[in-house]
């Protein structure tokens, strides 16, 4: 199944009724790396949450490979995320008391036993590739960059077709940020995953196939880059 993204008439409102995001039409082919830029407060995070089926007060259609998340029940959306989507959040969101390995393998905690082992192995692989050698340590003592890597490993552990990353390089120094985004993009491309990455960082855009810009809840530019 090829999970192309197709959005129609998406509108997300705040509880007050203010429109936070409005996307009349957007298509993203499976396997594409899409960058999302825009000023702070523009609605980029809101957009990513909507793509994961986490949006409240929204209308329209968000279809991944023909599955419209908007018509699914919350439990069915959770199931879709579980099987197809990996997320990296703006501020890591790790279990501080668990080891890096346990954090990365978190999706295994609610998976079938057979899959749990696969997830744990994959999580370990990704941590290795990202250069986290001490996976047994609790993440309390980890630096920001290390935490970001653990968060990325967690997003990839269940081997999802879609990776949604919110500011994956924020608060990292230039060199670390470059290495991290390079590793992430390489892994995503190797495995033919779709990557949608929100970022303020121009260095991120240069590695994307296509970059859209959101301002005030609307897509104002859409630029396909040739790599």
């Amino acid at each position, binding site marked *: 199944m090829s999970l192309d993204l197709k959005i129609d008439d998406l509108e997300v409102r705040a509880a007050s009724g203010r429109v936070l995001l409005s996307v009349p039409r957007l298509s993203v082919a499976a396997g594409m790396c899409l960058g999302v830029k825009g000023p702070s407060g523009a609605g980029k995070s809101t957009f990513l949450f909507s793509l994961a089926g986490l949006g409240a007060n929204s209308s329209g259609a968000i279809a991944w490979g023909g599955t419209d998340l908007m018509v699914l029940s*919350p439990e069915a959306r959770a199931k879709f995320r579980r099987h197809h989507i990996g997320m990296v959040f703006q501020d890591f969101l790790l*279990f501080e*008391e668990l080891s890096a390995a346990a954090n990365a393998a*978190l*999706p295994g*905690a*609610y998976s079938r036993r057979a899959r749990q082992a696969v997830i744990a192995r994959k999580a370990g692989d990704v941590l290795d590739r990202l250069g986290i050698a001490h996976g047994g340590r609790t993440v309390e003592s980890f630096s920001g960059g290390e935490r970001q890597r653990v968060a990325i490993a967690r997003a990839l552990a269940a081997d999802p077709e879609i990776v949604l990353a919110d500011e994956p390089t924020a608060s990292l120094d230039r060199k670390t940020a470059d290495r991290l985004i390079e590793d992430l993009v390489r892994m995503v491309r190797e495995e033919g995953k779709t990557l949608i990455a929100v970022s303020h960082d121009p260095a991120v855009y240069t590695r994307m196939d296509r970059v859209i810009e959101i301002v005030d809840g609307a897509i104002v530019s859409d630029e396909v880059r040739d790599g």
Partner: protein
Amino acid sequence: MNPLAPLYRAIEWMPVLAQDITVLVVLVMPALIVGALVLVGFRPFPLVRAMLWRFRWTNALFVLLIAVSVGLGVGLIAQERGLRQGTARAADPFDLVISAPGSEITMMFAAVYLQPSDVPLLSGEIYDEVANAPDVTLAAPIAFGDSYVSSPVVGSTAQFVTHLSPDLAEGAMFADRLEAVIGSRVDLALGDSFTPAHGVGDAAEHDAHAHVEYVVSGRMQPTGSPWDRAIIVPVEAVWEIHGLANGHAPENADQLGPPFDPDYFPGTPAILVSAEQLYVNYALRAQFTTDRTMAFFPGTVLANLYSLMGDVRQVMSIMAVVTQILVTAGVLAGLVILTRLFARRLALLRALGAPGRFVFSVVWSYAATLIFSGAVLGVAIGYGAAALISRVVSAQTDILVTATLSWPEFHLVGAFVSLTVILALVPAFIALSRPVVTDLRS
């Protein structure tokens, strides 16, 4: 009325142990079923452990609160049983006591538990009548009133000593008027001699019997009763020391023990009677319930006290149960607040795509772990408290009270766990109803 009565009625054909196990299983069954339903297919424990560790001090406080409230209930039941068993064991050798009319309780405390009190005497005719009633195997005078240091000195017969302690721990039975057999915890050695004081405690007149010296000839086995502190001497000696006839006619003035001659019998505050035919005890009790005598079973007096004690315990148990439920409700309310602290982690799990039931099972397991740990610790606290109080009571009354844990305590704890573990579903539902994205952004 006990809500479990129909269950006990249905299983009364089982052996008692099987009944107790069945009741416990029935009581914890709701917890097990809820646990199985909530947990089936999931392994939330690594996450639960992480959450427990994260807020360990808060959690420890919650566990302690639950434990203390559970311990209160457990300790109450264990303590009551300990007191009942201890006082009953101490009264065990005293089937039927006959004395002058008065208060059965006062008399029981005087004759059985050796708490001194001034009581009128029974005459030689009455003693004779009791001793010669058919089927009576033992009719022993119990002549209390003297003391040595903190030990009551009681006049009786060799048969009575044998009744209390079939074998002596050391030494021999008194064979002479001025010999004494001591209780297991009396601070004297074989061969020691002592002078008794007239009266007991602060009122004792120490020089009233200054011319008398008893020699310790033997020591009884421990009985777990105040008799362990008592000194038993021939009743003839007690009478003679007080300047009275010694119970025997002048021609056999050296005789020790029964039969006594009614004409030379100065009187005794109480007579212990023992009969092997069951109905004889009841017949004697009826026969000697007259205007001159009172006959009672210390067992009945105690049983009535227990019944009273049981009522008091029941009221206190209800208070303890209410406390337990209030504390748990408080803890669960605390958990609702605590789950707000976990809200981001729970939202994260749901954002990653964890099934709602998994998140539910995490919150429930967390609460259930606190409850279960509290309950287990509560049993330990209750037992510890009961053991401590028992030791104090034993030291102060010389009645051996031992704390034990038995089925009623475990039934109480089982019911408590079941009830509260079901209540713990509430914070789990509340946690689940929180908005994911809002919690993630917070």
